[in-house]
């Protein structure tokens, strides 16, 4: 049994750990700061290790790991949001915790070093990403940071390719609008750029009412050669 576990560990290290950079890259843009990103990667890899027996060896390991990572992120994101709602309602302060779920206010209160670090890394892109619904953010990160194909993103996010395209389109538009707005606020540009319109983010993560991107519609209109 010990030998089997050693073999499993060796196999996991040889197959999964080479994807550490990809996991960190995605986690860095999904999470709010480098420390949360490292926690997210560790949590995802430990989950992957626990379920390593279920990984099909001839399938795409990177996509499998990213799926675990994004699921971990989305679960955590939803838990944090619920927690924030509870705390906001009670205007309570959570001081010391031993969990991974740390209210940001409490975290900052507890660690002045953390506050400085978070300020330093909280660049415009990260602020704009933070404002996106989790599904939009995940689609953008998987495509524009990880370079995954639509089909792979659809597998990771467990949704149709059309939904991926729609989330990508809207996520990018919202990001561009936020960045243009920040640029105006900071005096980098004089007037807001005429960015194409996109629906405001649905914080509940719902799908847009009318998809502006529809490859199926184009194909149905395309004359057959």
């Amino acid at each position: 049994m010990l030998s089997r576990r050693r073999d499993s560990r060796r196999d996991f290290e040889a197959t999964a750990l080479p994807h550490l950079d990809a996991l960190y890259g995605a986690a860095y843009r999904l999470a709010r700061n480098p420390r949360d990103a490292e926690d997210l990667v560790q949590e995802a890899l430990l989950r992957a290790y626990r379920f390593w027996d279920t990984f099909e060896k001839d399938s795409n390991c990177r996509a499998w790991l990213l799926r675990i990572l994004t699921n971990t992120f989305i679960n955590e994101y939803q838990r944090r949001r619920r927690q924030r709602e509870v705390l906001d309602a009670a205007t309570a302060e959570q001081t010391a915790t031993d969990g991974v779920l740390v209210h940001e206010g409490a975290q900052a209160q507890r660690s002045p070093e953390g506050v400085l670090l978070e300020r330093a890394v909280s660049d415009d892109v990260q602020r704009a990403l933070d404002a996106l619904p989790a599904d939009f953010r995940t689609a953008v990160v998987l495509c524009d940071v990880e370079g995954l194909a639509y089909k792979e993103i659809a597998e990771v996010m467990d949704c149709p390719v059309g939904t991926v395209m729609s989330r990508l389109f809207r996520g990018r538009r919202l990001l561009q609008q936020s960045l243009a707005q920040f640029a105006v606020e900071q005096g980098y540009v004089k007037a807001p750029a005429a960015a194409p319109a996109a629906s405001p983010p649905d914080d509940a993560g719902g799908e847009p009412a009318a998809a502006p991107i529809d490859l199926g519609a184009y194909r149905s209109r395309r004359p057959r050669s």
Partner: protein
Amino acid sequence: MKHLCDSIETLAMTLHDGELAGDELRDLELHLTECASCRDHVEREAVAMASLRRRLAPPPTPDLLRARITRALDDEDRAARRPLASWLLPGTAAAAAVAALAVFVVVLRAPPPTSSVEDVVAKITTRSRPLEVEGAATSQWVQRNYDPSVALPTFGAARVDRWGARLTDVLDRDALQLYYRVTTPEGMTRDVQVMIFDAHGIELRGRRAGIDGRVLLVGTYRGRSVVTYRDGRDRAYVFTSTQLAPDELTALVGTSSLLLQVRDDERFP
């Protein structure tokens, strides 16, 4: 080519994402040579997307993350191995395992007893949790985030590196969890954790051991060697290790800076 103009947003995005191929790609390329409006749109999108991707590029993976993952996997392996390992131990350890099983059976029928603080600490240290600070910055971080008056233990007898720290709580009291790595003369590494917390009003348990007239409490909890020291301010330092035997851990703690400055009333009678 109205159908191409109507779908230019879709086509521009799929083109820049490398998802357009075959006839669809050829149709669009041909259309762009003829339609200035669509060509402008595709070019604007290319610039915007390249800019966005450049800004989204993450920094390199921190060097320490790889080591941290390896450590977390080690902890995971140890946690999975422990129940079996206890059965493989000879003599008194096997007897202890049988006794533990007996206790387990009894516990099934009786209300669970109140855990000792040592047991609570051992339980906390079995969890794999991320560090909040690593390396040389630990001391300063502890001063800022935990208690400036805490002097972190150093050791005189062996090569012991302080790996990092995190904040936690023990019995609802703020606690500092420190991680050390001991390198033996043979070059083997052994991990040791130290939990520091205010022990005012808390009973500390264990077999009393005296090192140069100083009091230490020694025991084994959840498969971990546990050595506890209470200083003159009622602060507990609970050392735990799965890789050092209780007597080895006791000897290590005996060389720690904690015991160098001991008040007379703390001496072992």
